[in-house]
């Protein structure tokens, strides 16, 4: 098994999941790259703790109507899932179809939406849009309950085209109105009452009743519509099918997936990959699984230039550090605190700042957020009592003999990633390691004298600029 294979697999797992430990990476390299891609794209059993056990052991994740409990619950799924792409992709759709607690006062319906992303997120894009159009949280978020036959509310129709499928410049204001007409009557059961409840935000006495989709035929505009150059008595389903077959939609979806899974910035080579992804989109009948398969198996994605070309998002930063440290695997209270850290870093799960979602890339970083990122990860990865960190130390110890400070730094860089750092960082790390002199691997046993030295070096690596990237 070559170092190159390990590095490539680590790259895949950072992008299609939340990173992996060295044990996991070695097993996956044995499996082979294409086979691992297949496995990621066909999630079977996430093996998460069943809800009844969560209710029993995790009181902090049990009040799912409220934001705190719901965010913790989702964070825990990300930490423990054995189908990481399923959660990573749900996080992607959550950012793209950004629906927020602020207007709903009801987090349960947001978790239902996330669950819909799990069920349909790798499927056909037209189907995802259809589910989204029937999603109760989305309906209230974009006011579709106020979209009536003869008195349209354009909010959902507009964002469906602008933010969720084609992007601005590919349709007219007239198309928006016609689109909105088709979705009149797509509402909630008992909507007037639910609307009042959402506005009141009172937990007294019966608030936050889960919502369900209701199609009110008598409020649906069945008249003739002209939409994107076609004319007919289009239903909402028809409108979505017309959207799905547009080049602009294929480009939009492929580009957004590329930026989330491959690189924040699209260069010329990236453009070529996006072209291939668009082809897969059409050939597969709009299947996201096929589009992602094309990306992950592309030479571009596998090349070294695609590595560390994205800034990690806050949830990603937290979940990958925790998975590497091997904590929270057994029922442990405090996942809600972990979710708060994502908020400190600028990403309150289930409460995106607006329907545009979070601005990603360098916009994740400001001085306050960077301090929070570094502090959380440094603390998590510098503690030798955590099982994942102990495993890293064991791997260093097992080699036996004496390690120079240089060797020690290289070992740590390898086992925490592998990750390559620039000269400034490497010099600073070696200088730091040199203060403690050579390391006798015998002193790395549990309770040994040099154990914390490894923890300290991991702390500094976790604090580098390079570690902010995935």
């Amino acid at each position, binding site marked *: 098994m070559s170092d190159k294979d390990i590095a490539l697999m680590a790259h895949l797992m950072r992008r299609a999941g939340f990173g992996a430990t060295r044990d996991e990476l070695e097993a996956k390299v044995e499996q082979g790259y294409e086979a691992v891609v297949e496995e990621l794209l066909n999630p079977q059993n996430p093996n998460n703790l069943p809800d009844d056990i969560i209710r029993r052991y995790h009181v902090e994740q049990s009040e799912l109507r409220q934001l705190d409990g719901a965010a913790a619950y989702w964070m825990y799924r990300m930490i423990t899932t054995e189908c990481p792409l399923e959660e990573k992709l749900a996080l992607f759709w959550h950012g793209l179809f950004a629906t927020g607690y602020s207007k709903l006062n009801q987090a349960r319906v947001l978790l239902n939406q996330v669950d819909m992303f799990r069920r349909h997120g790798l499927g056909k894009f037209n189907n995802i849009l259809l589910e989204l159009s029937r999603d109760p949280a989305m309906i209230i978020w974009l006011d579709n309950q106020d979209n009536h036959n003869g008195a349209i509310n354009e909010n959902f129709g507009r964002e469906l085209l602008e933010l969720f499928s084609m992007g601005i410049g590919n349709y007219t204001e007239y198309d928006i109105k016609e689109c909105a007409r088709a979705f009149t009557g797509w509402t909630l059961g008992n909507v007037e009452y639910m609307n009042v409840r959402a506005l009141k935000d009172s937990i007294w006495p019966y608030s936050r009743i889960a919502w369900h989709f209701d199609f009110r035929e008598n409020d649906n505009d069945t008249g003739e519509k002209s939409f994107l150059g076609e004319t007919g008595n289009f239903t909402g389903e028809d409108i979505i099918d017309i959207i799905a077959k547009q080049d602009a939609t294929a480009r939009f979806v492929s580009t957004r997936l590329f930026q989330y899974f491959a690189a924040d910035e699209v260069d010329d080579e990236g453009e070529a990959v996006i072209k291939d992804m668009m082809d897969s989109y059409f050939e597969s009948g709009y299947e996201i699984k096929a589009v992602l398969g094309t990306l992950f198996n592309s030479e571009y994605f596998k090349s070294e230039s695609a590595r560390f070309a994205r800034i990690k998002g806050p949830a990603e930063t937290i979940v990958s550090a925790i998975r590497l440290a091997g904590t929270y695997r057994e029922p442990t209270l405090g996942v809600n605190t972990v979710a*708060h850290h994502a908020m400190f870093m600028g990403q309150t799960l289930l409460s995106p700042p607006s329907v545009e979602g979070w601005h990603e890339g360098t916009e994740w970083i400001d*001085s306050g957020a*960077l301090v929070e990122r570094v502090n959380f990860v440094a603390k998590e990865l510098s503690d030798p009592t955590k099982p994942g960190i102990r495993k890293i130390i064991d791997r260093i110890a097992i080699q036996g003999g004496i390690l120079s400070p240089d060797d020690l730094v290289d070992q740590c860089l390898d086992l925490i990633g592998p990750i390559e750092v620039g000269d400034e960082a490497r010099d600073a790390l070696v200088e730091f390691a040199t203060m403690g002199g050579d390391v006798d691997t015998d002193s790395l046993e549990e309770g040994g004298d040099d154990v914390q030295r490894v923890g300290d070096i991991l702390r500094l690596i976790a604090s580098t600029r390079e570690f902010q990237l995935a």
Partner: protein
Amino acid sequence: MASGNGNGKKNLVVIQLTGGNDTLNTVIPYNDGLYYDNRRTVAYKPESVLPISDELAFNPKMGSMKRLWDDGKMALINGIGYPSPNRSHFRSMDIWHTAEPDDIGKEGWLGRTARVLDPNAENVLTAVNFGRGLPRALGVKGVPVASVGNLETYGLFPDLQDDMMRKIALDAFAKMYGGARGQDAVMDFLGQTGSDALKGADILRTAPGLYSSNVEYAANPIADSLKSVAQVMFANLGTRIYYTIHGGYDTHSGEMATHAQLWDHLSGAVGDFWDDLVEHDRQDDTLIFIFSEFGRRIKDNGSGTDHGSGGSAFLVGGQVIGGMYGEYPSLEPEKQLEGDLQFNNDFRRTYATILDRWLHVGSEDIINGSFEPHEIIAR
């Protein structure tokens, strides 16, 4: 009016009361029978309150703030709110933070203000938040804002107990984020941001050491926060906007005990902070603004009160013309709004007062419109 080494620059200290402060039990209409009709259990008896007029009185726990009122240093803004009130904490707070009642706003009003005060982001401490996580009021892309959980340990690696070890780790961090720029835009940006964070933390951590005062603050979170504000202010680091949050005002149940304790802490902390300002001769260049996202339901629920609308806000400062602004909303059933107090003065008028009359930055671009300031600031 230069005083106390602050170079005469005007400061703003914002205290956000999170959860929806119950106006009716803060500024109490103690002679209004309707108050007692609606508040069967969650009410104060007339003999227990601190009257400020024949109609209104402060909560019994607001003694320290009553003193500022009596000295004419406090403006009470009644009936503050915005059109079509939203009873959601999150949405309502967003509206206060972005000054955008209709659309979902993207930029915080104080982040925009910081950008006007320091357009080239030369001082990483122009705005400082005392708490974890950035309130949306301060969030604007490219505007550095320090968020300080605890001033004593603020910065990188607060978990490192050993001072020597922490110093070594910080030195290493400085080297890792330093070095030549111009290699790669993202790495440069990260390097610059990390160096800014380190610089801000280094400067901020000096503040407690420079501070001396005869004021003894109480030991509770809001007193700690205001003491930290004082420490940073008196260290003259060029900070203009100080922000802190006092949480727990969502008093659906057990309100009489909880709400009283909150105001005991808050009023005491504001009083101590004021004494500290006076001791350091900074009262004339400081304005304290206290607000909450909404008021609460007129009728109580037997134990507490539910979300309502129409609240009250306070401005405190040496240049404040003390007194009442805006009309106290009527409790008459036909004048209520769905069982809540009807707002009668837009919160953006208060923002315009702060921006135009105090910080002297044009309010229109910041709050997206022209609003008439209250005549609260002495000219």
